[in-house]
Structure formats: C-alpha cells, structure tokens
C-alpha cells in the first residue's frame, strides 16, 4: 500500500502492520500470477500421455510416492504460492468430479495462461481476454458434443467400456497388463452399479493390496478380502457354504453403561458371579451355534476364554474386523449386522459360497477371502505387486479406471483420445473466431492455440517432433474431415484413433475445458495481491 503522509510529512499507518505487507498490483500482479501458474503446469507437462514420465515425491517424513497422476503429484508437492494452490485445486476438482484427466486439465490451464500473457503484453484488457476465453470454451464445449459418439454397452457387452478404461490405464505404469486391469475395473463397477438410476457408489468397491507376487496376479473377487486371520490357529482354514454371523458386540459379559458396582461379601456370591460369567460365554457361543452360523465375524475382540470355547465348539471366528469392512461384508453376503446376541436369528446370517484363509508366499501374513457371495453388491479388487509404491500407484490407476467406467455408465458418450478431440476443437474454435467482432477475437484465437498444447505435449513426450507431427495431423483432420486423427503415441502406424481404440469420456473432456477456463478466468481477474511480505 502506498504510504500516505500528513501535512507535516509524517507517514501514517492505515493498515495494521502495514510495513510488513507487500502489495503487487496491476499488470505486475497478473504477470507474477501467470508465471506461477505456468510453473506448475510445466512440472506436469511431461507426465501427460502414454509415454509420460513419472514423478518421485518424498514427503517430509520420508515416504516416497511414485506416480504420474496429476492430482496426486500436485497434492504431494505442498505448494505455497497462492496461484499455484489454485492449480492444485483445479486438478483436485477434476479428480473429484471425473477422476481422470487431472494432468490434462493443468496442462491446458497452463497453456491458456501462457497465451494470455502474450495478449496482455499487447495491451488487451484482462477481462476482455477472460470473456474471449469464456466464449471460446463454449464453442469447444458444443463442438465436443458434436463430435462425440454414443457408446452402446450392456451388462453382457462390456467391450466398449474396457476399451475406454484401457486408454486411461495406458498412461500409467501398469500399462503392461492394462487389458486385465481394465476388465477388472469394468466388472467391478458393473457389479455395484445401479444401472437404472445411473448411480455408482464407489465406496462399495474395496481396493486392497498386498506386497508380493506379480501384477498379473491382481484379481477381482466377488466378495470381500479382509486382512485378518482366524482367531485361533487351529480353526478350520476353509469353510464352504458359510453362514456368517456379523456381530458388533464383543464376546464378553455385557456391561451396563451406567456406573455400577457389584457388592460381593461372601464366597458364595463370588462363586455365582464366576459361574455366571462362564455361563455368558457358553450362552453366547451356543446362540451362534443355535442359529446355524458356521463363521463368526466380530468387530471386537474375544476373551481368551471365549476364543477357546469357540475353538472347542468348532465355530471359526474372525476378530477385530473394522467397521467399514464389516459393513461391506454384510452387504456382500446379504447378512445383517447384529448388535446383540439375543437378536441373532437365522435370517440375519450372511451367506457365502466359500470362505478361506490364504497365506502368501513365505510370509506369515494371512488374509481371509469371503467369496461366492449370494449378492455380490460389494466387490474387492485385490492388487499384487513387487513393492509398496507399485501397489499404491496401481491403486491410483485403478481408481482412475473405475471413475472412467462410472462416468460412462452415467453418460455413455465418448470422444476420441490421443489429442484428436483437442485438435478438432482447436480447428472449430479457430474457424469461429473470425466471426466475432471486437477484441475477443484475439482471445478466442489464443484459446485455439492453447488447445494445441495437449497434442503438442503428447507428441513431445512420445519422442516425436511436436510441431511437425501436430501440423501433419491437423492438416489431415481438415483434409479428410475426420475428427479422429490424433497423435500416434505408441508408434502403431496409424493416426486414426478409432482404429487404435483410444477413447475418452465426453464429460471428462468437457469438464477439463470448462474447469481450465474457469480457473484461468479467475487468475486473470486478479489485479491486486496483498500478502504478508515474508512470502
């Protein structure tokens, strides 16, 4: 803030701790903001596409993450700059809404900012640029709808869904078995999807990972996998046609919640108390037996006494199962969660075709598989991989693939990938630009140029000549009037993305363009930054 002086030349203070604040205003503020936005985009640029590189991130406490998922990279980078934070949120909101394309949206925003900088230097008012971008984004939005294809699929014909998920997975480290992972993702989503309401609750898909084995061993289980073992080592390891009692009460004598005291003044009383306690255990186990349960899954622990009794009565049990897992088990097996032994009835038992305990390799780790459930509305994807980082990255990649499948169920329109949609939009926007009178025309053209940034980055990351490739593809699109021409990242020999089976969801692409425009608009509109000066 400019210092004000009174009539005697003394400065007076208007703001609190005025001296410690820095203020950047006007064009300088915009330039600085654009520069920081661009810096973030530059980091992500090399992660785009099937040949994109990964980033290794080390957190303050030494955890290492290796990923090429834009949202994750930015999240872990812990940026400090305010504008850079906006970019982080941009990618996060793409992640929330669509789940995929988090890198693309940031690269796109970076390109838009870069173009805006040039226009600002020419003296165009930032709001005019923002308005031009807005117009252009609508043109692109509508154009995308125009070039989109409906993708028909049904519960039996899932091939189109798999193809789209494969496109997403191809840019990840797991691309060597993208086919099998895509199949897993699609099947998992279809298992939990409510096709009528077009609603998919991803909470019902449990993703579990275990170090060891190889990626190809990753499997989809129509049921639940719990990282627990049987409470007693001598219990049977495999139960067929299990009837499962799902309990949220411990195998312990019940306690009243009110503060209580039992006065024991004679030996007899003590004896009765002890007997009663034992009877409780006996009753509890008997109750489970009576309703016909062959497996007990409990949220809490057991007394050693109870454990022993269960073992004795040949009733296998699992203890300390987390609440979320318990709920998923209940959903998968069609059982009900029972809070009290008195409430156990045969109808409340869950059913599973097979429950088995599986040990892995030479380690002592065991896990319990609950499979062949009557109602597989909850499924588990069980990931194997060489190391922890690999598994984490696979989880993230699968999350993207799951989101893509979900989006397709919501809206089955797709556009072609490999930058073809962007190139096509760029051509459309460029053509539309000339129709606008006024300064906006320049901004619209700049938008078209910015759209080229994505195919350009794709080409660059794939080791192709970016400008040469892009111009060749662009001219091909115009010449053949074919909006499916994209960058041939995998060197297959054709530019036609239809043949390469590279698809992306329409809503994902539209969201990218709208979100990027929105954030760029916001950044452009700021002309005054007031911050504590130590930043």
């Amino acid at each position, binding site marked *: 803030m400019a210092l004000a002086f009174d009539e005697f030349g003394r400065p007076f203070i208007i703001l609190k701790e005025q001296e410690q604040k820095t203020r950047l205003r006007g064009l300088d503020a915009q330039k600085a903001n654009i520069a920081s936005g661009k810096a973030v985009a530059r980091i992500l640029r090399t992660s785009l596409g099937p040949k994109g590189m990964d980033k290794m991130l080390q957190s303050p406490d030494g955890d290492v993450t290796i990923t090429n998922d834009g949202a994750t990279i930015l999240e872990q980078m812990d940026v400090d700059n305010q504008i850079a934070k906006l970019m982080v949120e941009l990618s996060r909101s793409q992640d929330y809404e669509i789940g995929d394309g988090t890198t693309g949206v940031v690269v796109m925003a970076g390109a838009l900012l870069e173009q805006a900088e040039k226009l600002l230097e020419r003296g165009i008012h930032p709001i005019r640029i923002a308005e031009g971008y807005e117009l252009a984004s609508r043109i692109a939005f509508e154009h995308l709808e125009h070039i989109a294809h409906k993708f028909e699929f049904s519960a039996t014909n899932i091939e189109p869904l798999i193809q789209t998920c494969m496109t997403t997975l191809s840019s990840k480290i797991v691309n060597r078995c993208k086919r099998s992972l895509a199949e897993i993702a699609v099947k998992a989503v279809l298992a939990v999807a409510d096709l009528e309401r077009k609603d998919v609750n991803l909470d019902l898909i449990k993703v579990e990972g275990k170090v060891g084995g190889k990626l190809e061993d990753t499997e989809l289980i129509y049921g639940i996998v719990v990282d627990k073992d049987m409470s007693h080592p001598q219990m049977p390891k495999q139960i067929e046609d299990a009837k499962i009692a799902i309990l949220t009460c411990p195998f312990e004598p019940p306690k009243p919640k*009110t503060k209580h005291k039992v006065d024991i003044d004679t030996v007899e009383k003590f004896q009765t108390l002890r007997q009663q306690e034992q009877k409780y255990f006996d009753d509890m186990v008997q109750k489970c037996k009576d309703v016909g349960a062959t497996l007990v899954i409990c949220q809490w622990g057991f007394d050693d006494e109870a454990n022993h009794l269960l073992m004795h009565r040949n009733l296998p049990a699992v203890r300390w199962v987390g*609440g979320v897992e318990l709920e998923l088990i209940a959903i998968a097996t069609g059982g009900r969660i029972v809070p009290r032994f008195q409430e156990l009835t045969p109808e409340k038992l869950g059913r599973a075709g097979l429950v088995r305990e599986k040990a892995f390799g030479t380690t002592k780790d065991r896990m319990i598989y609950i499979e062949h459930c009557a109602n597989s509305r909850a499924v588990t994807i069980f990931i194997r991989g060489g190391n922890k980082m690999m598994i984490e990255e696979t989880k993230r990649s699968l999350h993207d693939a799951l989101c893509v499948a979900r989006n397709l169920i919501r809206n089955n329109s797709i556009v072609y990938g490999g930058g073809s949609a962007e190139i096509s939009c760029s051509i459309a926007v460029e053509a539309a630009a000339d129709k606008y009178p006024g300064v906006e025309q320049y901004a619209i053209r700049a938008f078209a140029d910015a759209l080229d940034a994505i195919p350009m980055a794709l080409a660059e990351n794939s080791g192709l000549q970016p400008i040469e490739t892009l111009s060749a593809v662009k001219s091909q699109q115009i010449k053949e009037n074919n909006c499916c021409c994209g960058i041939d990242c995998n060197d297959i020999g054709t530019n036609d993305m239809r043949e390469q089976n590279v698809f992306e969801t329409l809503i994902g692409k539209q969201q990218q363009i709208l979100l990027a425009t929105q954030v760029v608009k916001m950044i452009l509109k700021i002309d005054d930054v007031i*911050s504590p000066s130590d930043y």
Partner: protein
Amino acid sequence: MSAMLQPQIILLKEGTDTSQGKPQLVSNINACMAVADVVRTTLGPRGMDKLIHDEKGNTTISNDGATIMKLLDIVHPAAKILVDIAKSQDSEVGDGTTTVVLLAGEFLKEAKPFVEDGVHPQNLIRSYRNASYLAIQKIKELAVSIEGKSLEEKKSLLAKCAATTLSSKLIGGEKEFFATMVVDAVLTIGNEDRLNMIGIKKVPGGTMRDSFLVNGVAFKKTFSYAGFEQQPKKFVNPKILLLNIELELKSEKENAEIRLSDPLQYQSIVDAEWNIIYDKLDKCVKSGAKVVLSRLAIGDLATQYFADRDIFCAGRVTEEDLQRVAAATGGTVQTTVNNIIDEVLGSCDLFEERQVGNERFNIFSGCPSGRTATIVLRGGADQFIEEAERSLHDAIMIVRRALKNSTIVAGGGAIDMEISRYLRQHARTIAGKSQLFINSYAKALEVIPRQLCDNAGFDATDVLNKLRQKHALPSGEGAPYGVEINTGGIADSFANFVWEPAVVKINAINAATEAACLVLSVDETVKNPKSESAQGEAAASAMGGRGRVGGAFRGRGRGMRR
C-alpha cells in the same frame, strides 16, 4: 529560582499523539482516499478482483467491497469509518458496497480543496446534507415501480436486477443462469424473513454450470456408522421424523451408580438399559416415519436397527439444516420419541441420496410447504466457490430488496449522471457559498461512470462528456443513458436491462454522505499509545464474522472404532 519556573502541565500520557486543526482534517481525508483507492478497481463488470492473503495462510479472492474492506484490517481511525459504511451497506442492502466507499472517498476529495482554502467544515457539511437530501428525492422521483406486474413478468424483471449485480462478479459469465436460480430461490421462500431458509452448499469440483437449485433441502451425508449402506437410499413420499435426541446406547443418567448385591441381578440391569434404547427405536419405527433425522448422534445400534426395518437415518445433522428440513417438510423437531403423532411428521415428494462431485448428498425435494431452497454451488477451486457464494449472497439480497420495495433505477452510472445534472442545475439557483459545495458534490457523483470507464480501459473523459451532453437534453429523454461497457460508448441502460433497485442507490448516497460529513467534522484526534493493540484486536474480532457458518460436519469417512 527553580520555583519560579513554570512547571510543564502534563495532561495526557506520554507518547499520546495529538494532532489537531486543519492539517489533521486534511490528513484524515488523505487516509480515506487511500482506502477508497484500494477498492476503486473492483467496480463494475470490468472490475478486477483482489487476492488477499493473511498471516494465517487464508486466501480470499474477492470483488465484494465489504469483504475486501474487512480483510484489509484497517487501523487508521478515520479510514475505519469507510469500513463501517461498507459493512452497513452490506447488511442493509447487500450490494453496492464498493460504490459506497468510492462515493465517500470522492466526496472527501472534493471537499479537500475547500478545507485547504479555509472554508469552515460545518458549512460543507450542511451543503452536503442538503445535496444528499435533494439527490434522494430525485432518485425516488426517477425510480420505476415494478409493482402490479404479473408473476411471470416480475420474475424476469427481478432476474434482470440480479444479473446486473452478478455481472461485476467472477460468475458474471453465467449471470443469466445464476440470476434465474437466485430469483427462483427467493420466490420460493416467499415473504419469509429469515434469510437462512436459503441454504448455500459448496461442493468443490465440477464447473459453475453444474450448480443447481433444490426446491427443498440438501445436505452432505452425515457421519455414519456400520449398517448405513444397507439402508434404502431412495423414498417416494416418505414421512420424515425430526429429532433432537441421541439414539445411542448410553447411560441414562450422569453420575448415577447402581449397586448390586446379588450377582444374578446383573443381567436384568443390562436388559433394562437395552430396553430403554429399543423402546425409543421402536417408537420411531411405529410412528411410520421412513426417514429419521437427528441433530444429535444416531449410534451404530440404531443405524443397524433402522437398516433392518428399511428406514433411512442420519445423525448429527446441523441445526440449520434440520430447521430447514422442518420448514420445508412441515414437520416439527421433537425432543422425545413419546407420543409422536402424525402432525409432527414431515413429508416430501422424493428423498434420495445422490452423488455430487466427491460427496454423497441427502436431497429432499418437492416439499409441500416449499418455504426453503438450497443452492448447491460447484466450482473449480475453494476460493472460487467462496467468491461465488458471496456474489450469490449479494444477488439474493438485491432480489429480496427489489421484491419488497419494488422500485428500480437505471444502472451503468446513468442514475448518478442524472442526479449530478440535477444538482448542478439546482446549485445555480442558490446564492452563496453553498453553490460551490453542491456543485462539487455533483461532480463527485460522476465518479461512478468515470470509474466504470477507467476499469474497462475506455477514455473516461470522452465518455463522460457524451453522457453529460445526453443528460443535459432539455427533453429529459437522455436520463436513462449510462456507460455501455462492451463498446465503450453510451447507451440507454434502462433499455439494456442494466437495472438496480432504487434502495441500493438511496442507501449508498445516504451512507456515503454521512461518512463524509463525519470525517469532515473531526478536527482533533487523540490517540492513546496503549489502546493501539486493543484496537487492533477489536478489528480482528470484527473481521471474524461474516456471519456465515462454514464447514458443517466435515468428514466423509464412517467413524468406527476398530
């Protein structure tokens, strides 16, 4: 000898800063002008935003005058007056907060040369008051009433007002979309005075266009226990029970103690406790309600009990949301489960749990009494949604104001130019010093169109002269002409639907004149050295409340003890 010396009389504490007289007055004016300069560039559809970043790391990007003024943390005593008028404009009208600060700054700027020339401030004050009175009369005269129009017509008129307000904001690109949304929301709550009946929920992700209006209530899925996912998530025409009690297994009385002498009675105590909770749950079920909401916790036991009986429940619903549900569905919040009669149950056409972005939302729609509306805002970044919320708040206030007073004036600086012309004309009929002062008041009013042009990058002098010429036409047909923001010329604001409620202008002129007069009437400041920090704290505490409850119950995970 020393006894002869005149001892110095110490009246005030050491370090006290006293400045007085004319220099003091001028320096106060300077301070106010410096503050007005900060918000100057945010005016109008081409106005820019400010990014304010405080020590705690909170960032705000805003275009709203009142918000910026509050966040600036101004300590200068005279300049603080401007913060106050911005706040009062915000609470009174909701919009025009930048205008009011700008006007006050400009009035003072015009007064400065006179003060330097030795005019007594009281003379200035009297003339300013007079001028503001005349200006307000003129506004009332020029205002057009929208009373007596049909509902459809009124709706589109109100939407125009809302669009004018929104055009200067970040969401200006979608102003029609949001204007209709705001008008619908305001009309839904009708004459209800409680603004909190319009809920605004913020969900990061998606684009602005994904925002939607729920004709009823929507809130984020609350914290839930195991068993929740087994409850049905969609009901048609459900009965809704609203509670303010805990449905959990717990000790009924604090500090009570049970003493048992016979161990065999142990079981009966346990049973008694279970029976209490089962009894409560049973009553809920018997009432016939399909959706049970409670402000307090609904425990895991209750969740599973309800799941068994195909009932949906949500615990720890925030007070505000629960009130809204009550108003919308016609239910009453109960503090006991005894004697639940049908009348206290609410109902709605459809209840469902839906995915919005990354969150699950509980949505009640098609409510019978329809006294509430919820706007679910979407956007790419937190700051973006925050700013959108502030903008919508302004628009809602404007629409409500317009609905109540239902007179509007032309925007785009047209009304300011017209008043200015009128005052100049009036000034010529006055003999004496007052003529000069009213003239300068009139000149100060021109700051609005001038700033609109400056912000848009047009030649202000050029546009202003065109406007002056139009407004000076004797026929009076030029009165609605204002700045045309797109081309840089002038245009009939009224015909272009750049409208604002008259009350915004009236209040702005009133508040700005008051503030200017207040600053002018001060000729001495006594600043106590110690009170400095206390003042700072007071300012900080005032900053804290823009009266909106953020962050309902966060946490999407399900809380289960492992």
